[in-house]
């Protein structure tokens, strides 16, 4: 029996609808060639026109073949709403519009037998952010004067590395009344309190990665800001490993150990130590999941850096062979500390979780003093690729968890011994300095940020589900793709300049916040200078409630 084909995919099932105006379109083809997702195509429509060419009406019908642009109703090519078509159209003839009646989640799974995946960001539902209910509310006045952000000197550095309690410092008091360090202390670097978070060279296009590295080198060498970047899982170009710029990079190892073959082979040729080693146990955006690099993004240079064929690269959810915190401490930390002859701090990154404090406690009490940093990644963090189900339904916000860890350290008198670094949606509203500052006050030594760098590079995605196609390898901005044509859309010099400028701005703004509370060094743990307009937040974080 013939039926209406109700189960066929229609454009109004998709999350975005393409709105097209034939009258304005000159058929230049720009939009079609610019849409990296193949979500629009030209086609010819049969048009019926009735007209009359006599004085009295004698309607005639004519049919014509009219070329138009139309949305593709193929699941693989659904429109992401990235808006590139609109950007390139000289006549404002095309744009995309969010489809409130989308049936996408249902039809996708019904068709593919697997859930949708996306990349970019977790937090598609934007709720009021905890950090936005906080203000710096203790302002120095009168007897305790504010400082001058322009004129006074400020010490804006944070430790990365294990800090010994003062009574364990290997000091000898000489006859001249001077203390001399006569033993070994764990390696520690003072760095800028904002690290550019771990985005791997596979997740990012080579131009984007290059842009970040250029920005970091410039910030260090020209601007005097010791900003560090974390490699992400997947190694680094060997040339960079052997260069002096390695000192600005924190090397990451995750459960897939991707890229470490090359790193180990490059070790004898390294002229500088890396800034640190970060062992990634978990990631805030998709806790419990390992890394995921879709085959589409495994270009030849990625294959060679990682030593893998072109296929989906999945890191296991945990490090094989690590069954307890003690083991992770003993095995991984010792081997990495030893690998760099105890000159490089080794830190750990975990996803914020209801159990973070126990993990932290175990590490802070370890008698070997080798864990050099606790990186806590919250739910709002970005990701290159993940299943929607993990993004939407797992995770833990970072703010209260960071506070819990700091307070756990305080309760044991061990604050500062393992520096706390926090991330997860910081800078989401564009002001990283404010978010970072509030996190310092709550106990973070520093913060790390990733997604914001993509924004600075011109990422078209947003928190309202726009684009978020970083997993597809078809990034329309050339940021998270290995497709040469798309990569060429990105101007690495411009991106590097944006990042540098942004950091210079952040640095000024940090001073602008330190000055009014009268502090010339980072106010780590100074929750007394925060207030909250939300009673529940105030109680939870133990800051003053105000109204």
């Amino acid at each position, binding site marked *: 029996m013939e039926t209406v084909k109700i189960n066929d995919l229609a454009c109004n099932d998709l999350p975005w609808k393409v709105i097209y105006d034939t009258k304005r379109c000159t058929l230049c083809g720009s939009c079609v060639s610019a849409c990296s997702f193949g979500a629009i195509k030209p086609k010819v429509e049969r048009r019926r026109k009735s007209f009359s060419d006599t004085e009295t009406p004698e309607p005639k019908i004519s049919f014509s073949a009219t070329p138009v642009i139309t949305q593709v109703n193929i699941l693989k090519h659904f429109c992401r709403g990235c808006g590139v078509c609109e950007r390139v159209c000289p006549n404002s003839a095309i744009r995309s519009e969010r489809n409130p009646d989308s049936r996408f989640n249902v039809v996708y799974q019904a068709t593919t037998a697997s859930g949708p995946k996306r990349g970019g960001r977790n937090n598609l539902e934007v709720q009021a952010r905890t950090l936005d209910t906080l203000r710096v509310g203790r302002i120095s006045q009168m007897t305790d004067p504010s400082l001058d952000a322009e004129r006074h000197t400020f010490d804006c550095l944070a430790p990365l590395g294990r800090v010994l309690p003062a009574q364990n410092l290997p*000091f000898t008091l000489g006859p001249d009344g001077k203390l001399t360090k006569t033993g070994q202390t764990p390696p520690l670097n003072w760095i800028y309190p904002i690290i550019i978070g771990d985005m791997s060279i596979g997740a990012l296009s080579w131009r984007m990665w290059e842009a970040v590295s250029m920005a970091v080198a410039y910030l260090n060498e020209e601007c005097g800001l010791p900003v560090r970047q974390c490699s992400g899982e997947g190694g680094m170009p060997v040339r960079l490993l052997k260069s002096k710029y390695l000192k600005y990079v924190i090397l990451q190892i995750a459960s897939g150990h991707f890229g470490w073959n090359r790193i180990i082979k490059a070790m004898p040729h390294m002229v500088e130590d890396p800034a640190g080693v970060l062992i990634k146990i978990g990631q805030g955006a998709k806790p419990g999941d390992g890394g995921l690099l879709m085959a589409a993004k495994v270009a030849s240079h990625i294959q060679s850096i990682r030593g893998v064929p072109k296929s989906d690269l999945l890191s296991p959810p945990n490090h094989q062979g690590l069954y307890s915190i003690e083991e992770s401490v003993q095995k991984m930390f010792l081997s990495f500390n030893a690998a760099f002859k105890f000159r490089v701090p080794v830190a750990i990154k975990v996803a914020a979780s209801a159990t973070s404090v126990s993990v932290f406690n175990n590490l802070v009490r370890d008698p070997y003093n080798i864990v050099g940093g606790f990186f806590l990644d919250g739910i709002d963090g970005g990701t290159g690729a993940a299943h929607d189900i993990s993004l939407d339904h797992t995770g833990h916000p970072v703010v209260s968890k960071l506070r819990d860890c700091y307070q756990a350290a305080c309760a044991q008198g061990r604050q500062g011994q393992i520096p706390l670094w926090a991330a997860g949606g910081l800078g989401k509203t564009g002001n990283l300095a404010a978010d970072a500052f509030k996190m310092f006050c709550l106990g973070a030594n520093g913060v790390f940020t990733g997604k914001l760098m993509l924004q600075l590079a011109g990422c078209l995605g947003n928190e309202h589900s726009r684009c978020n196609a970083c997993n597809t390898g078809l990034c329309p901005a050339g940021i998270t793709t290995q497709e040469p044509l798309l990569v060429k859309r990105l101007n690495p010099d411009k991106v590097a300049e944006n990042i540098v400028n942004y950091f210079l701005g952040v640095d000024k703004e940090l001073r602008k916040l330190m000055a009014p*509370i009268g502090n010339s060094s980072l*106010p780590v743990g100074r929750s007394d200078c925060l207030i909250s307009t939300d009673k529940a937040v105030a109680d939870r974080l133990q800051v003053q409630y105000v109204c």
Partner: protein
Amino acid sequence: MCRIGAIKSLNYVHPSTALHLMNSQQKGHDNSGFAMVMQDLGGIFADYKDKPTLSLACTDEGLQITEEILGVLGFRQVFQWAPETNWKPGMDIKKMPNYVFRTFDYPDYCRDMSQRDKEELLTNTRLRIRAALEKDETGFVYSFWPDVITLKEIGDPRDIGTFFGLWEPDESFTARTITAQCRQNTNYAIVRYAAHPFFLQGYVTLTNGENTFYQKNKEFQSTLHPGYLGFESDSQCFLYTMHYMHRRLGWPLQYYKHIITPLPFEEVVKREDKEELLAIRQSLAHLEINGPNTIIGTLPDFTMWVVCDAKKLRPIVVGRTEDTVVFSSEVCGINEILPGRDWESDIYPNEREIVVVDNNLEVQRWKQ
């Protein structure tokens, strides 16, 4: 704002000198109290230098509680002095029923104890008394230590001086080291414990200023030592940091500045001792201070010192004669009690030094 002062002399000095030192600066403080610590005692206490003296202000009930605790622990009283008080109507003073200054002999079981253990016993005893008196606010115990007397009272310092008969100099109640301050804690609740100078195991500090890293300091210090408590004033943190560094860690005085106001990183990396300085900064990041302040202090051996915050946001002057050195927030205080001195040799300490005076009155300026 606070005004603080300190006198260190080769001769025994009567507290009236301290009152004069502070009274001349009265426009700068709010006359809300008077507190002083006398160390290296002369007069009637001169014969008891090695025996602990209790300084206590309390009710009758508080006195009973204290006597009981000391009795049970086996302390035997060997000397006592009660100031003759002269109360007149209209005086601005919140007096306590009893002011107790009593000197004790150590209990018998202390005979074979090390000096350090005896000192711990004294501190633990004071903390026990403090806790017992706190319950119904029956008293305040300020110090229990050899060769130290502490007096704190709320009210107008001039009336407090008259009340205790401190304006008339005499030979019987004197010390070679006196630190004094004329303001109750006006930032927070008025509590006797909140008045500087603060005392712990021979260490004294008093401060003109504020500590905006109070919360960090406090959270860190409160787990370090049972004597680091109270925190009624943000300035107590300065004392605890000194005590922790000097007594617990055994580091010399010169490292105090490196802990509380570390050098900027750009300067540290140029120094020969950068490894040590960075290690100190890392390990004691939570003892760093911020905010405007001048801190005067003494060590258990009566060495007197003064430091300022890293931006020198509070004043301090050091003036001296052959036999006396005076620290004062304002120079008018020194003019008052050392009128004949050579004022050209006055020292205005800068933000990166510690000025130290030893028992021979040798004045040294140590650059951080």
